[in-house]
């Protein structure tokens, strides 16, 4: 939702970045205020996912210019784990499997890292169990998945639900959802979207990265940006998604010309 006079959470200015020496982001500008949901759409290879990795500090991506301010401070001054504890969250396009580490241990460790950072008490096994029971219905998740290894043997839909469960537990200020709709059937898409919708508040904000308009029928964005060749080339409201769906990304190149 667009809230008058709400503070800026994320301000990206002229951001450039490269992978293995190849420039991918070529001057991205974007500002997101608390309460807002933004969607970035664009063809494959336009740099959408790169933006999410750069914001969360993946070591393979090198920032070559520009600046990003998160809650008024330099985001790049923070290590990846510090960014997460400060409230930046990435729901992965391909969530990673970690054999031998139970999902509940992983969740509790993440949660306690965030609590410690906020100066709040860490939870022991029992209290954290109670918290999980409270959060599981948000993504309609079977408690059996808590005792299994992180994402190991999970279906595509189960992995994405597990990502949103982490979001529910970590309560990020900025949630970046990278192609969260990919590989989901219609039921899983509904569950995941409802989960995200329950978690949005006037205090936090959300950046959806998606190739298709489908997700945006379930999570209604306030702004839609189109990314092409490492830049945001067009910004509009939710009706832009329908235009894109109807006319394809090629239409943009034609209008450019």
């Amino acid at each position, binding site marked *: 939702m667009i809230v008058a006079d709400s503070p800026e959470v994320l301000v990206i200015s002229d951001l450039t970045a490269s992978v293995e020496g190849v420039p991918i982001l070529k001057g991205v500008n974007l500002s997101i205020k608390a309460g807002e949901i933004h969607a970035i759409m664009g063809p494959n290879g336009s740099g959408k996912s790169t933006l999410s990795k750069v914001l969360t500090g993946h070591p393979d991506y090198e920032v070559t210019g520009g600046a990003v301010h998160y809650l008024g401070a330099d985001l790049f001054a923070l290590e990846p784990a510090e960014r*997460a504890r400060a409230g930046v969250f990435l729901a*992965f396009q391909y969530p*990673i499997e*970690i054999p*031998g580490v139970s999902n509940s241990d992983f969740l509790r460790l*993440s949660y306690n890292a965030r609590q410690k950072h906020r100066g709040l008490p860490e939870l022991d096994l029992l209290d954290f169990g109670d918290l999980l029971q409270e959060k599981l219905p948000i993504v309609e998740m079977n408690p059996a998945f808590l005792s299994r290894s992180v994402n190991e043997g999970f279906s595509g839909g189960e992995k994405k639900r597990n990502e949103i469960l*982490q979001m529910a537990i970590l309560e990020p200020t900025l949630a970046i959802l990278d192609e969260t709709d990919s590989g989901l059937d219609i039921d899983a898409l509904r569950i995941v979207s409802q989960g995200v919708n329950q978690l949005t508040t006037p205090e936090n904000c959300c950046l959806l990265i998606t190739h298709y308009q489908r997700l945006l029928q379930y999570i209604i964005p306030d702004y839609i940006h189109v990314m092409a060749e490492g830049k945001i080339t067009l910004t509009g409201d939710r009706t832009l998604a329908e235009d894109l769906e109807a006319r394809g990304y090629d239409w943009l190149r034609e209008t450019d010309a």
Partner: protein
Amino acid sequence: MITMASLQQRGREQLAHLQPPTGQEEEWQYLRPAQMLPSVTTTEGQPLAPHDAPWQPHLIPEAHHGLWVNGRWCCPSALGLEQSGLWFGTLGPHPSEDPLWQRLAGMISQHPATQDYFGYCNLAALGEVAVLYVPKNRAIAQPIQILSYAAAKPQGDCLWVQPRCLVVLEAGSRATLVETWLSEDGAPLWHNGVTEIYLDDGAHLDHVMVQQEGSHTLHFQTTALSQASHSAYRGYGMALGGHIARQTIQVQQGGPATDTALSGLIYGAADQHQELYTTIDLGHPHGTSRHLQKVILGDRAHGVFRGKIQVGQRAQETNAAQLSRTLLRSPKSRIDTQPQLEILADNVKCSHGVTVSQLDADELFYLLSRGIDPPAAARLLSYGFAAEVVTQIPIPSVRSALEAWLMQHTASGL
């Protein structure tokens, strides 16, 4: 009549013809005992104050215990198990003409794996032999724990301890054995242990080995196993401590349809050197073996794993599988790992695999992106790597103690 003295005598006679390996031998290329073994040793360890029992935290609550302290058997309470033919105690300096005593004494040093320089060193120094004897068709529900604890005198000569165990499971019997090897840090110590295990037809042994020697200990351990037909052995080897440590596990399948399973973890940090040499000899039809070996090395630690599988000509329709996986956590850690298959039969399945990897960058980033600091993330991934073998250990208290140990130790060594 066989006596401890006659066995000692045999050890001394054999030693007269043997020299410690020089490093020229294929199986000793990473260690050179001839140059490395202490020239001056003592058998006198640091005396303990009355009621002092530093091994106490390592005793398994649900087990019967037998104890070696500084190389001497000192656990009369173990004798309480002598009932209905079951025997957990020792063969000692007072020989007996009892047929079982003589039969068991006659099995000592019969396994070929014990007939080398180190095996005969142990035999030549024989004082007592810890014995676990389970008669036909008996199953002991409680685990049996044999714990060796040693502490050398500070500034003293190298303490040499040579515990020896004999495990005999008669046909159809079943037992769980835990061997724990402990020593204090700081003063030089040489452990040269031998455990001989004989499983008769259809016997089943679960065998957990936990090596947590001190930082100045040279640890050599030979585990020699002979299995009769339809017997099953489950070995769980946790090699965590010592300065230089080497375990040799040699399994002879002596009859058809014999099953051998090994799973183990080698954990090395600082400048530890850890070796594991295993040989599984499948000599009969329908034998099976599985071995999963995990190795985690950090700092400047060096690991060596050589897993030999021999499938003899008569061993038709056997199935042997071996997988070793190593996680190198630091740039200066190093592993030498080698499967070695010798297959003479034609209708067999035999598989082997080796992986060597570092901490996975994507897995690390996933944990970082959830606010977990790099050292804690590395610890969690190392723990996860070891979990597959640790969770197989059939005794809950041993399993949770190892999990706690791993949680504590995997935080460093990067």
